[in-house]
């Protein structure tokens, strides 16, 4: 009897210690789950650039430019990583002013296993850092669709280095960085919703692509000479890898293995499916045949459009956003581009610029607190027009305008600099030979081997 009493007393005195042990175990379990998903997501987003985009774009060019085009994607995995590690992460995610971050995380100083509660409180800040890096990697790679088959490799390297600093870092800070101008969740004065990078990634890259294509001029022989995709097979494989990788891009943007991640995953998949059908239907009616290229272009357009909306919309609006993106981007690429005659060779603007803009605006319509109940200043608020906040569409439009404006001015200035310092375009002879041999001294397909 006396012994039992002693044990009870012992247990009672241990209680706080036990509770805190349970709490620590629960926290560590959540951290393990979230970290596992975020590391997988980071890898998925890298897979979108290489091999995804490299194959998608590589297949669409002529065979003499296949390696040069793949290089435009691949090199970003190296170049941007370096810049991001040295100062890029700091300029986006450390506290600064509304337009650009500070230097607190220079050389990743203080970025380690401890979470950064400003962004993701359950995963190591290093995980957050490397996940965000993968977004910075793919964004300039997307632009390469506009200058394919005629750019000097050296000029492309200089352009990208400047562009990531002048356009991407400020835009990413404004939308996602603490205190950023457009950041809806941490004190932005013009709150816009961009879950996974509709403005930051797709509008900046798409609009810059258009400026680049106009500045650089057409490929020699365009459009009178045939410039058919040399391997639709590569492009199909690449586009399908993009589709899969996009789950990391959008669902990963929940920054946790949460219900919100699932919601974004479903919205992403639904939009891609509806957009593939939308593009195919438009093409079938317009040209008489539904093409494989139409199917994959539509899917990518849908993935682009759902990117800003993915963490804010329910499944049915996701289907609608996808369908509209498929139809709209087909119209942009197959009709508007033909009418104006600019040579956005692989349709970086027609898909990413146009799809990104449509998606950003529709996010203002369909964003709902049913999906994303993150409170602002401790209060769950109405998000989009469906929640009774139609004014959000205006904010979204401002976000689009800021991204497009920054992209136009930044890209134009950087092109002027690159043109003066290096010269943008390869010689007509090198263009005829192809970038593989003229820029890299190798061939994608060798008959003698």
């Amino acid at each position, binding site marked *: 009897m006396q012994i039992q009493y002693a044990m009870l007393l012992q247990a009672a005195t241990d209680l706080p210690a036990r509770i805190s042990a349970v709490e620590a175990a629960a926290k560590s379990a959540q951290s393990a789950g979230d970290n596992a998903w975020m590391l997988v997501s980071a890898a998925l987003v890298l897979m979108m650039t290489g091999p995804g985009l490299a194959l998608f774009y590589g297949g669409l060019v002529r065979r003499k430019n296949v390696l040069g085009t793949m290089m435009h994607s691949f090199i970003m995995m190296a170049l941007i990583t370096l810049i991001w590690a040295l100062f890029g992460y700091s300029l986006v995610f450390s506290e600064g002013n509304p337009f650009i971050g500070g230097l607190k995380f220079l050389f990743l100083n203080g970025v380690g296993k401890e979470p950064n509660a400003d962004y993701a409180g359950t995963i190591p800040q290093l995980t957050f850092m490397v996940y965000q890096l993968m977004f910075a990697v793919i964004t300039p790679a997307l632009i390469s669709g506009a200058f394919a088959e005629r750019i000097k490799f050296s000029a492309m390297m200089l352009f990208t280095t400047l562009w990531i600093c002048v356009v991407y870092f400020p835009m990413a800070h404004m939308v996602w960085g603490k205190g950023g101008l457009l950041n809806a969740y941490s004190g932005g004065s013009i709150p816009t919703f961009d879950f996974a990078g509709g403005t930051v990634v797709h509008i900046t890259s798409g609009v810059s692509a258009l400026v680049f294509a106009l500045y650089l001029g057409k490929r020699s022989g365009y459009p009178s000479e*045939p*410039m*058919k995709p040399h391997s639709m097979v590569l492009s199909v494989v690449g586009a399908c890898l993009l589709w899969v990788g996009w789950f990391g891009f959008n669902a990963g943007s929940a920054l946790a293995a949460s219900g919100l991640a699932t919601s974004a995953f479903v919205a992403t998949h639904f939009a891609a499916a509806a957009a593939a059908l939308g593009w195919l239907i438009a093409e079938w009616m*317009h040209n008489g045949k539904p093409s494989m*290229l*139409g199917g994959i272009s539509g899917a990518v357009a849908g993935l682009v459009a759902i990117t800003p909306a993915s963490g804010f919309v329910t499944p049915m609006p996701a289907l609608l956003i996808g369908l509209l993106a498929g139809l709209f981007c087909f119209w942009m690429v197959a*009709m508007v581009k033909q009418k104006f005659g600019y040579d956005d060779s692989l349709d970086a603007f027609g898909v990413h610029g146009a799809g990104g803009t449509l998606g950003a605006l529709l996010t203002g319509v369909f964003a709902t607190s049913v999906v994303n109940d993150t409170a602002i200043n401790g209060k769950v608020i109405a998000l989009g027009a469906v929640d009774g906040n139609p004014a959000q569409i205006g904010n979204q439009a401002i976000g689009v305008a800021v991204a497009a404006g920054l992209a136009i001015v930044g890209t134009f200035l950087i092109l002027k600099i690159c043109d003066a310092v290096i010269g943008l375009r390869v010689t007509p002879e090198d263009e005829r030979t192809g970038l593989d041999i003229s820029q890299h001294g190798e061939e994608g397909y060798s008959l003698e081997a």
Partner: protein
Amino acid sequence: MKKIEAIIQPFKLEEVKEALKNAGIDGMTISEVRGHGRQKGHKEVYRGQEYNVDLLPKVKFELVVADVRLQEVLETIASAARTGKIGDGKIFVYDVAEAIRIRNGDRGEAAV
């Protein structure tokens, strides 16, 4: 000796090969080629950009036969390759000055 050059539809490759084998012809060279005669090409559309593809894939047979067998082999190829539609292809016949089997130096009809 005559050299026969037959340009046919790619999907007739197996049928022609089989017919030649049944006719006792064991030697031939085949290549994938592109070309067109009176047959018009087709239209391809990539994201709204139209291309007229008029050089169509064909298969070219090359074989050399003894003079006495010429008519029979020509008939074999033509009937196996014929669909009756435009695009079936053409057969050309050339005189051959000499033939040499590299392995043992056989010459003339003994080498084909």
